[in-house]
């Protein structure tokens, strides 16, 4: 019996002791992330695990639920980055390709976790070392060696040589064989950046440059890039010698093209400068300046999709100038559940399909039910509506607590992380009575967080944006906005709902507001007195248009469905997080790295409900 990621070597002597130690001390990296695990009701903190923030320090990869195919490459890289011996524990994951077969599998429940861990410990103790341990390979890991110029990242060759622009020796660089591999290369880890990289490198431009340089070289005039000829000669305009330039040289490939004009071999020797001196001024003149006028190396570092403290599944890649963010590229790797286009779908199936969205399933289930019932013209009794509203409020509490926990991880406030996580697990699936009973501890937590002076110091003024930007839900209400789908909901009016607003529009206001809302939601549930997860009533064979709008924990989501004789044939869904994704660039630009990440975290994005 041997681990999928066993380490070479016979299991004997000291190795037995070490294997025992590994089975005792399981340091785990959670896929897609601890927040998802909690929302699925897994208590990782309480199961004698060490949850680490980087795969390099992990010995076990815990996979929670099936891996979205947008994350498969990333998962492969994460697994590859774990030092051997490494093990996989799959909880209700099903097929986990491209990863090797899991060493222990279990259903996605707390008991499953417990039994799975027990089995895993046995497997690790027995199979941590093996003489014929196999290597792990995946498409995302195949690297190609290419040669690039330290000064001109857009120059890429397949074989070593000199840079056609500055004559420097090209240096080898590894890039992924698959597209965008360069990002996944470094999921959660430092990307292996050249220390000598001066301009923001994006794989697109690299590959584009690669394709272009594959064409045979042209000769162009240093001063007049538009002059391009196939053989060397003099420029018709200024009579200078034409210089050899690669395919993009004459075409001004994003401002780098003009470098072709400063090829030191062609520039006229200036008195006082020795020939063949490499002028840094000319080499760097066209490269972007940073805010303080001091031009640093630009490094593009990935933060996600599995970065500790950031929402799992969010691909956030920051271009760093020193430790200041010079640019950002954020998108969702998972995307939201795609809706039926022409194909008809049974209502129940449609509801489950929408509820499959991570992090706030109940809200979306309720949304789907409401929309379909509206289309079918079904009305409810007050109790039923109250019970649904209460269920959504309960999910709001859990979601905000989960956000607090992640925020605690991000800001290093570990006490908050542990406490909020535990309370979230307690709230999920709790009945009215339990929630009312939990009001005490939750209230204490909230008051303590809201009062913590260092927290104010940390958050005030970070991620502030004005009223002109589009925002939904708590993010909007934290800047004094009034968007809340609950405010025109009769049921919640009966429960005495009144919209909560904070001014300030920065991370601090968002945290304060979410704390307020947790408080408020507990009150609402208490007054409702009843709580039931939404169940779809039986729609007969009817046709019609229906629309519904529900305030999810992240903002208002709107759904319109078309029923044609009992089947859902068309649907339109608007989710809040998609709008928030557009905020990231402004909130991070020219911020110190830590502040930028906190600003992103304070938005409480959910990649699972974005159009990726």
């Amino acid at each position: 019996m041997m681990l999928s990621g066993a380490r070479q070597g016979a299991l004997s002597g000291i190795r037995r002791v070490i294997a025992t130690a590994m089975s005792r001390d399981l340091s785990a990296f959670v896929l897609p992330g601890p927040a998802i695990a909690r929302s699925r009701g897994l208590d990782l903190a309480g199961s004698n695990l060490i949850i680490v923030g980087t795969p390099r320090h992990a010995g076990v990869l815990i996979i929670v639920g099936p891996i979205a195919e947008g994350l498969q490459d990333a998962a492969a890289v994460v697994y590859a980055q774990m030092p051997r011996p490494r093990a996989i524990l799959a909880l209700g994951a099903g097929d986990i390709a491209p990863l090797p077969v899991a060493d222990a599998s279990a259903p996605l429940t707390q008991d499953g976790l417990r039994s799975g861990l027990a089995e895993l410990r046995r497997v690790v103790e027995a199979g941590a070392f093996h003489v014929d341990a196999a290597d792990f390979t995946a498409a995302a890991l195949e690297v190609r060696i290419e040669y690039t110029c330290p000064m001109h990242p857009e120059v890429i060759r397949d074989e070593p040589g000199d840079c056609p622009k500055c004559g420097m020796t090209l240096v080898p660089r590894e890039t992924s064989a698959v597209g965008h591999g360069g990002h996944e290369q470094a999921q959660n880890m430092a990307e292996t950046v050249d220390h000598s990289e001066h301009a923001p490198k994006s794989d697109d431009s690299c590959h584009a440059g690669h394709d272009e340089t594959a064409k045979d070289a042209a000769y162009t005039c240093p001063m007049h890039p538009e002059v391009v000829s196939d053989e060397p000669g003099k420029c018709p305009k200024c009579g200078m010698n034409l210089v050899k330039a690669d395919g993009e040289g004459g075409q001004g490939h994003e401002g780098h093209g003009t470098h072709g004009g400063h090829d030191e071999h062609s520039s006229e020797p200036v008195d006082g400068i020795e020939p063949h001196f490499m002028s840094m001024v000319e080499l760097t003149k066209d490269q972007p300046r940073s805010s303080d006028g001091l031009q640093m190396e630009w490094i593009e570092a990935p933060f996600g999709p599995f970065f500790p403290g950031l929402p799992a599944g969010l691909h956030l890649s920051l271009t760093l100038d020193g430790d200041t963010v010079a640019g950002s590229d954020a998108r969702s790797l998972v995307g939201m559940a795609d809706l039926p286009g022409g194909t008809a779908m049974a209502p129940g199936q449609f509801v489950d399909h929408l509820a499959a969205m991570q992090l706030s399933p109940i809200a979306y289930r309720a949304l789907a039910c409401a929309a379909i019932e509206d289309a079918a013209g079904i009305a409810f009794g007050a109790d039923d509506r109250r019970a649904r509203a209460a269920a959504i409020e309960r999910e709001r509490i859990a979601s905000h607590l989960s956000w607090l926990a992640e925020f605690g991880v991000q800001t290093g406030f570990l006490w908050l992380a542990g406490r909020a996580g535990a309370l979230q697990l307690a709230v999920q699936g709790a009945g009215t009575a339990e929630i009312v009973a939990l009001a005490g501890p939750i209230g204490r937590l909230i008051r303590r967080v809201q009062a913590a002076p260092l927290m104010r110091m940390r958050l005030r003024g970070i991620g502030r944006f004005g009223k002109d930007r589009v925002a939904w839900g708590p993010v909007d209400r934290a800047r004094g906005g009034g968007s809340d789908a609950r405010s025109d909901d009769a049921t919640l009016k009966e429960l005495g709902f009144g919209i909560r607003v904070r001014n300030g529009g920065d991370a601090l206001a968002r945290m304060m507001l979410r704390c307020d809302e947790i408080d408020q939601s507990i009150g609402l549930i208490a007054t409702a007195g009843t709580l039931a997860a939404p169940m779809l009533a039986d729609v007969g064979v009817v046709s019609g248009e229906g629309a519904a709008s529900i305030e999810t924990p992240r903002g208002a989501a709107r759904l319109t469905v078309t029923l044609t004789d009992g089947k859902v044939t068309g649907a339109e869904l608007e989710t809040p997080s998609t709008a928030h994704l557009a905020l990231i660039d402004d909130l991070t630009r020219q911020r110190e790295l830590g502040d930028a990440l906190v600003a992103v975290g304070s938005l409480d994005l959910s990649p699972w409900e974005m159009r990726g």
Partner: protein
Amino acid sequence: MTVAIVLLSLALGAYLLAVIERWAVHGHLSLTGPAWAALALLGRESVLARKSDRLFFEIGPVLLLVAGLLAVAVIPLAPGLIISDLATGALFLNAALAYVLVALIMAGWGPNGAYAMIAGWRFLGQFIAYAMLIVMPITAVAMRAESLSTVQIVTSQAQLWNVIYQPIGFVLFVVAAMGLAWLPPLDLPDATGELAGGVEADYTGARLAVLRLGRMTIILALAGATVTFYLGGWLGPWLPPWAWSAIKIMLVAAAMLGVGRYMPRIREARYLALSWKLGISLALANIFIVGVIALVVPL
């Protein structure tokens, strides 16, 4: 003999600290946990990052450990129980701790990774801002003891511990010490939520074990320095001197490790500004006050 005793107690202290840190970071308290963790680390393969600066990558953790050991060498645990009682002990402590910076820059530059590199340079700024707050309070301490020898500094506190004699210096020194050992909430170089481990991010296996051991040594050395300079070293009633030193050092170290659990990480900009604007002026004021007191009331 002395060396053996000191190193043994150092190892014991480091292990206890590891237990405490495990509780502070991961929230479980187990006496055997760190032992298993250390064994597991030694068993894992030690990955060498692609295109890394091999030399720095290897030297960084070792240099960290060596710096810690050198710093420990001038900390008296009891009368006579000190590896070397230098005439310039207090200064030597600074010199040794200064190489923590070099070690972290090496460890940050070595693996050729963005997180590690940023972490290393972050620590440079942090260190330069806070080395001042290590040196200047020590100056005031030495002024009272009229010597740089750590033993004499301890004996000079026979009547009154420096924590009462110069409280400003004590506060500054403790804060600066926590910054120097990058303990939360001042853990900018390995902030999990910002740099996914920072300098530690690319280290695995045995190298990571050395790095963590080195950090434990640094923390112990700084706790020992705090005790020596401000809490009267081995001085205390009833118990034997070595017991007093052990208790004080472990308490200080545990406090340094535990406090970070209950507060968020501080913002880098504000943190540096605090040192340059407030800290250094306070340290100067501290030196002035201590000088005046030393002139007026000989104690």
